[in-house]
Each structure stands twice: as structure tokens, then as C-alpha cells.
């Protein structure tokens, strides 16, 4: 291991080291403000380190056989860190309610970020599994963290059991693949001609494990319950960090297999299964979201649909379009992460302490006339999720459509169009609720809304401007990961 390798690994090392220091800090002094500040310091220094990392997109640095640092993975890690920062900041408002000191909570968040970091940089099944478990186990702890909340036991058990079975399926799949390929590396040195049934079965099991994490239909049943039951900041963590990391690692593995597949024509079966997953996710996610009243459940179903849209980028036919597929994925994920952060921030800022698990869309009734900045934030986020121009989500969708047209996946395009059409219905319902000014019964909006603090106001306006700016000038973002 050389110094260069260490330098490339610096962001991850910072987070790992930060976790140890945090534990020491807890032993020294238990203070929630201190621990929050330290967690933010760790994340921000890791973010600065990964921004300043001299990785060019076309090259990659192999750090031990396990990890490979490249521009795409590095950008994804930045996304993970930004989401983690947002989660930590938002958690502080949520955690203030209880009397105890919650330092282990922040350790768990850092562990999730570390797991995600390992995932996005992995180039080996061992690293993948390590990251996967680190992420999942820390998330189980977080999902059930609100002991006094209504659904905390159900949530964490559901997540634990399903996550464990998903990872065992994945492990079996990895074993099958290993039995055929003879190497745990994503891109083995020599590629053999006759991979048999076990290779395909292994792929299928592996895909099942990943699909569970990405909550693709039909592996989505846990999503709404866990989204609803988990504390709202943790739901945000689930929706952003865990999905970004899993998708990136799936993409890394898949694109390393493209050449094997195009050489042996063994990929068609798997490809059609991926198309099927994508189509069912797009349609089922959007259709199930239609009648949801609870905001968190609605977002859960909408995230299913979004992962379905994004799955389209896997179905490229030629290795030449890998660069475009990466670009599309990273832009789409950035848009998705920003929109999700926005909408969850708004959710936390508008909910009173207890009711965040039961927030209904109707609770946002008339928000535009009472808290215009928050309402505009929600509108931009919802439009972004719906993929309407002026927002990042549209550019993301445009990228994905580009990939799909290039790969001539007409069925997927058709279901994307139908899915977006269905999706508009519930997205517009949210927006119209915000504008609705008629009083309903004795409901007095405006009185029971928490007042925004100055710092919140600033960050809300910042999120709005960022969302619109990158929606109108996407180049400023995409040049970070575009091949010059």
C-alpha cells in the first residue's frame, strides 16, 4: 500500500477514524451538542477530502483488491456525505424532545455513512458484503431508535428480518458466482467461456438481495412500513444514503459484467429480469402511492417508482454507452437526493414533535399562504420528483430517457411514461393541498405550525435556490462527473 493509495482512501479513513474518536468522546463527556458538532466536523472534513481528491474520471486507483477509488464512486460518496450531514442536522431537532443524551445515535449515523462509503468504492464481493452489513445493521439500530414511538418495534424487526434474509440470499448468490468464476473480484483477470446455470442463478440471487435494499417491486413490502415507523431523519437516511450506495455498487458490478455478457450472450435472461423489475416497480410504486394519505408512506411508494426509473440505465446494450449511463445515474441520484432532503426537511419543520409518523398530506393544507418558503420548497421538491422542467428531476429524467432511447428499450419507455402519468396525480394533489385556502371544519392552520428559526429559513431558501439553479443550469453539476 502506497501513500497515494492512502491519500485516495482518505475520505473513508476520516469517517472510520471519526467513529473511533466519537466513541472516545462519549467516554470523556456526554453532551448532545458536542457530539452533533463533532459528527458534522467528521462529515464535513470527509467531504472536503473527497472534493479535493485528485481523481480523474477516466482513471481509477485500485486500493488493495477490495476497493477501487474512481471519480464516479467518489462523487457518490459526496452525495452520501451530504445526505448524512442533512440527516444529522435534522436529527438534532427531532432528538431535542427527549431528556436523555443520544450520542450512540450519531455513532450509528457515522457507521451508516462508512458502510455506504465502502459500498460505493468496492470492487470485490468481500468489500461489498462488509459495506452492506455495516449499513444494514446500523440502520436496524436507527430504525428502532425511537423506543417510545408507536411502531418502533415493528419497524426494526421487519427491517432486521427482511434485511438478514436478503443478505443471506445475496451471500448464496455470491457463492454461486464464485463457484463459476473462481474469483470474488468484480472484474476477474481471465474470463472463461462457459459459465453455466449456476452463474445465472447466482446473479439472480445477488440481484434479489440488492433489489430488496433498493425496494424494487416485488421486494418492496417492507418499504412503506419502515418508512412510516422509523424516526423521520432515519427515514431520510434510508431513502437517500442506503439507496444511493446500493445502486452505485449494483452499477459497478453490472458494468464490469457487461463485457462478459456481451461475449457469451448469457446476459439476456438477466436483462429481461431487470426490465421486468423496472417495469413492475414503476407501475406498482406509482399505482400504490395513489391512495396514500400519509406523507411518509407516499414517499416510500414514490421511491419504489424512482428506483424503477433509474434501473433503466442498467439496460444499455453496448459498452460505449457506459459513460452516459454513469452520468445519468449520478445526475438522477443527485436530483433524487436533493428532492428527498428538501421534502423531508419540510416534513420535519412542519410537524410538531409527536406526529411525524402520522403526518398526512392534508396537514399541509394551505401551507403556501402561511409559510410560503417551506411551501415553495415542497413544491420544487415534488415537481422534481415528478420530473417537471425548471427542476433537477426533469434533467435526471431527460438523461434516463436518453439512455433508454439509445438502448431502444421501448417497453421501458412506455412504462416510464405511464408511470409518470399516474405519478402526477398524487404529486399534484400534494401541490394543490398546499394552495388550498378553504377552511375545512374547525381546522385552524397557521396557529399550530412551528415558527421557523433564522437558520432554518436560510437553509430552506438555499435548498430552493440550489434545486432551481441545477435544474436550469445542469452543466454546473454534471461537469463534476462528465467525461471531458
Amino acid at each position, binding site marked *: 500500500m502506497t501513500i497515494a493509495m492512502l491519500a485516495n482512501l482518505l475520505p473513508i479513513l476520516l469517517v472510520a477514524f471519526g467513529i473511533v474518536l466519537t466513541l472516545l468522546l462519549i467516554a470523556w463527556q456526554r453532551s448532545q451538542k458536542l457530539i452533533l458538532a463533532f459528527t458534522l466536523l467528521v462529515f464535513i472534513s470527509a467531504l472536503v477530502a473527497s472534493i479535493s481528491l485528485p481523481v480523474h474520471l477516466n482513471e481509477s486507483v485500485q486500493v488493495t483488491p477490495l476497493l477501487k477509488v474512481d471519480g464516479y464512486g467518489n462523487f457518490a460518496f459526496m452525495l452520501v456525505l451530504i445526505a448524512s450531514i442533512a440527516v444529522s442536522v435534522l436529527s438534532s431537532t427531532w432528538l431535542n424532545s427527549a431528556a436523555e443524551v443520544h450520542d450512540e445515535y450519531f455513532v450509528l449515523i457515522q457507521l451508516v455513512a462508512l458502510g455506504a462509503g465502502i459500498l460505493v468504492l468496492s470492487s470485490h464481493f468481500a468489500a461489498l458484503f462488509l459495506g452492506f452489513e455495516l449499513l444494514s445493521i446500523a440502520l436496524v439500530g436507527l430504525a428502532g431508535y425511537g423506543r417510545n414511538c408507536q411502531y418502533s418495534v415493528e419497524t426494526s424487526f421487519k427491517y432486521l428480518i427482511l434485511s438478514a434474509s436478503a443478505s443471506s440470499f445475496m451471500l448464496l448468490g455470491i457463492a454461486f458466482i464464485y463457484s463459476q468464476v473462481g474469483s470474488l473480484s468484480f472484474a476477474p483477470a481471465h474470463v472463461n467461456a462457459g459459465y453455466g446455470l449456476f452463474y445465472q442463478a447466482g446473479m439472480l440471487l445477488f440481484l434479489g438481495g440488492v433489489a430488496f435494499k433498493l425496494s424494487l417491486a416485488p421486494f418492496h413490502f417492507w418499504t412503506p412500513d419502515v418508512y412510516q415507523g422509523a424516526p423521520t431523519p432515519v427515514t431520510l437516511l434510508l431513502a437517500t444514503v442506503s439507496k444511493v450506495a446500493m445502486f452505485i455498487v449494483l452499477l459497478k458490478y453490472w458494468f464490469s459484467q457487461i463485457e462478459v455478457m456481451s461475449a457469451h450472450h448469457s446476459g439476456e435472461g438477466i436483462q429481461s429480469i431487470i426490465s421486468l423489475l423496472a417495469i413492475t416497480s414503476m407501475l406498482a410504486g406509482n399505482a400504490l402511492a395513489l391512495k396514500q394519505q400519509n406523507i411518509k408512506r407516499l414517499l416510500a411508494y414514490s421511491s419504489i417508482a424512482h428506483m424503477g426509473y433509474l434501473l433503466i440505465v442498467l439496460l444499455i446494450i453496448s459498452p460505449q454507452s457506459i459513460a452516459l449511463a454513469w452520468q445519468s445515474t449520478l445526475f438522477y441520484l443527485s436530483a433524487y437526493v436533493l428532492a428527498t432532503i428538501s421534502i423531508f426537511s419540510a416534513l420535519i419543520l412542519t410537524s410538531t414533535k409527536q406526529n411525524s409518523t402520522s403526518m398526512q398530506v392534508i396537514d399541509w393544507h394551505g401551507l403556501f399562504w402561511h409559510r410560503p418558503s417551506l411551501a415553495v420548497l415542497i413544491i420544487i421538491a415534488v415537481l422534481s420528483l415528478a420530473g417537471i422542467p425548471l427542476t433537477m428531476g426533469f434533467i435526471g429524467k431527460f438523461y434516463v*430517457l436518453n439512455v433508454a432511447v439509445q438502448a431502444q428499450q421501448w417497453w421501458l419507455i412506455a412504462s416510464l411514461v405511464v408511470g409518470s402519468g399516474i405519478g402526477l396525480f398524487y404529486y399534484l394533489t400534494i401541490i394543490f393541498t398546499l394552495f388550498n385556502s378553504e377552511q375545512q371544519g374547525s381546522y385552524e392552520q397557521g396557529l399550530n405550525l412551528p415558527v421557523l428559526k433564522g437558520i432554518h429559513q436560510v437553509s430552506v431558501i438555499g435548498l430552493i435556490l440550489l434545486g432551481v439553479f441545477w435544474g436550469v443550469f445542469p452543466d454546473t453539476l454534471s461537469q463534476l462527473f462528465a467525461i471531458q
Partner: protein
Amino acid sequence: MSMTIVMCALLIAGILAWFAEKLRRHSARNIALMSVLVTSAYFAFAVFTSHSAVNYGQLQELVRVDWIESLHIEYALAVDYLSLVLVSLTLFLAVICILVSWHEIKEKAGFYYFNLLASIAGIIGVFTAVDMFLFFFFWEVMLLPMTALIAIWGHENKHFAAIKFFIFTQVSSLLMLVAIIAMAMLHAKQTGQLSFYYLDWQVLDLPVSLTQYLMLGFFIAFAVKLPSVPFHSWLPDAHTQAPTAGSVLLAGVLLKTGAYGLIRFVLQLFPDASANFAPFAATLGVLSILYGAKMAFAQQDFKRLVAYSSISHMGFVMLALFSFNAIAYQGAVLTLVAHGLSSAALFSLAGMIYSRIHSRNLADMGGFWQSAPRMGGFALAFAAAAFGLPGLANFVAEFLSLVGAFHVYPMLTILAALGLIGSAIYGMVLFQNSFQGSLRTPDNRQFKDLSIREFLVCSALISLLIVIGFYPSLVLVFFQTADLAQVKDVLEGATL
């Protein structure tokens, strides 16, 4: 001339109006009116000064700068006579829109005028964009404030109408987006570079087997907006529920973006595929004419009746455009202008009646002539314009459309002409039920005649209708030289 300035000015004025209303009541409408008048004056001045130097018979590029470099997307605007005429119509109707909402909008007026001006800016963008990504961008951007207008200031069933309007247009425009991307990819395949620039696309040489699908993607998006028969069902709901200015804008200009898209993109990018598709499209046009007229006759709701009559009139545009004939083409363009004025007039009238009796139901109306003769006179004139009385603009427009189309589709044109009888029937039903007969409710005895502001709106509209009716060359002169050549090109390319 810079259309960017026009759009930015409208948008900034909208934001100003939004904030100014918070400081002083009723300042928003003044700002909105002033901004539209000033930009119209600037637009007129710019057109007249550049008119002698520049030939607007061809597309004249105004600006072309890189926007999203990684995908070779540009910010490119260009105008020709078609765009200029439609932009003028938009600006004129913008003034009408502001005047009709003068007293109608009392709540949240600031945000209302912001939405109105933003959607006008978006519509002007649609008429001038020549980069297809930019076109799509404006196409969607004009939709958002329009939906807000319906959803916030609309009538009793506004949310349903707004969602229906938005989903219809959005889904169809996604099909167009797919077609746009496919075109850009084809350009990349042939020349090695992605391009969304309209003029680049015109030189592409594509087989009909491919273009017929691409053409269909564009066609569906524009047919929904026009609207043509199988895709029309959003229109009556949206019109009925929208506030008066929303209806005026919707009928006056938004429907025209569909026709504009057909002329600019479907016919000129895919001449062969359009020619193959033409009999089908013309049939859809005739179906729209007859179905719209029949449904209009059956309505009890004033605005719903006018909405169905719009479907009928837009059918003439579709029939005329797809007959690939110079006379019919002129008729189609003139129909756009004439219908923009006459439907705007009828919707304004509906708004004026609604503000007096708070009903759109024809059963609640009747006998208004007794107390409001001036309004009745205007109503009669507008209804006459709608059914194409000679001397008013619609007559010339429909006459030219039918004469042109008759050369190509004699049978279809004979059927389409029956629509004229239908329009006379529903026009008279509309007028008789509202202004003639006896008073239905005693309250209507106090029915007020036109105020000065309303008189101004009505007389502006009627005078334009009469002027164009007697002197159609005012509009047609622009479409006799260059566009004729383009149509001829299309005609020669056609394999009818």
C-alpha cells in the same frame, strides 16, 4: 429585436406584482397592465424597425448560445411571420386577460398576476424557441402557471379539472420528449454529434419507416393541445372551471400552441410521414368539427358550450393543415387568429355575466337584453363571429380552409361544411337563451349593462374581428410568399 427581453420583462414584472400587492392593494393589476403594454410597445417598435431590413418570411435567428454543453443543448430563438403573428395575438390577449380579471380576482391577486404573466412569457417562449429542448422546456413552463390559475382561482370543481388538464398534456408531451431525444440521437448517428437545433434537423434525411413513429410522438402532443377529438376531454373541464382570464388565455393562445407545433414541427420536419398520415388526421379534424358542434348544442353551461365550439373550430385547423394546400394553409393561420379573438370574446362575456348573476347555467339566464342592450349587441356580434357571419374574421378563415381542403378531400370537406350549420345553431342557442326571452329570476331585473372597462374589452375585440373580416390581407399578406413555397415543398414531397 430580442424576445428574451420581452419574456424576462414579463417574468420580472410578475414577480414585482407579486410582492407589490403585499405592500399596496390593487398595485399588482396596474403593474401587470403596464408591463404588458410596455412590452407590447417594445415588441411592435422592434418589429417595425427591423421589418424593412429583415425578411421574416424565413426563420430569422435572434439568439443562439450554448446552454447545456454536455448535451449540445442551446438557447436558440428565432422568429418568422407565423411566430410574430401569434406573439402579437398573445400580447393583445394578455391585455384582455388583465382587463377581464380587473375586479374578478380579489384574493391573492399578487400571485394571480404572477402566474398570468409567467404563463404568457412561457407561451411567447413556445412560439419563438427553435432548440427543441428549449421548446419542450417552455412547453412545460407555460403549463405550470396555467394549472395554478385553474387550481387556485377556478370554480367549484377546480382541482379535478386542473389535474386532468395537467396529466393529459404532460403524458402526451412525454411522448414528444421521447421523439425529440430519438431525433437528437438520429442526428448523432448521421453526423456524429448530438443536436437539438431545429434547423439542423430539417436537413436530416430519414426513412419514412422511422419518421412515422417520431411524427406520431409529436402529433399526439400537439393534438392533445389543439385539441382534436380522441384527446379533447380535458378541454371542457378546464375551460369551465378556469377563471375568466384563464379561459381566455386557454382558448385564445394555449390551443394555438398545438396548431403552431403542427405547422412548425410535424409538417416541416416530417413532410413524408405527415403526408402518409394526412387522410387520418383530416378525418380526425372533421370528426372534431362535427362532434364539437353537436356537443356544444347539448350544453347548458355557457362556458362549456363555448369550449366545445373551440373543439369544433380547431377541427377546421387540423383539416386545413393536413390538406397540404396553400389556400387551406392561409385559412388555417387565419382561423388561429380569428378563433383566438372570437373565443376570447365569448369567454370574456361569460365572465361578465358570471360576475353579475354568479352562474354559468343558461337556464338561469334570459332576457338580459331588456336591461343590458349594449352587452346584448356585443353578444350577438360575438356569437355571429363564432358561427362565421360574413364580414367577421371567422367567415374568411373558415371559407379559405374549406375551399383549400375541397381540392384534396372533397367528401370530408362537404361533411365539415355541415359543421357551419351546427355552429349557427349553437350560436343562436347561446344568444337566445342568455339575452332573449323572459327574465328567469326577478333578481336579473337589476342586470347591469357594460361598464367602461368591459366596453373597452368588447369593442377592442369586435373591431379587430371586423377589420380582419373585411380586410383579411392584414394577416394573410405575411403568408403569401415564403410560406407558400414551404407548403409547396411539402406538397411536392408528398406522395398523395
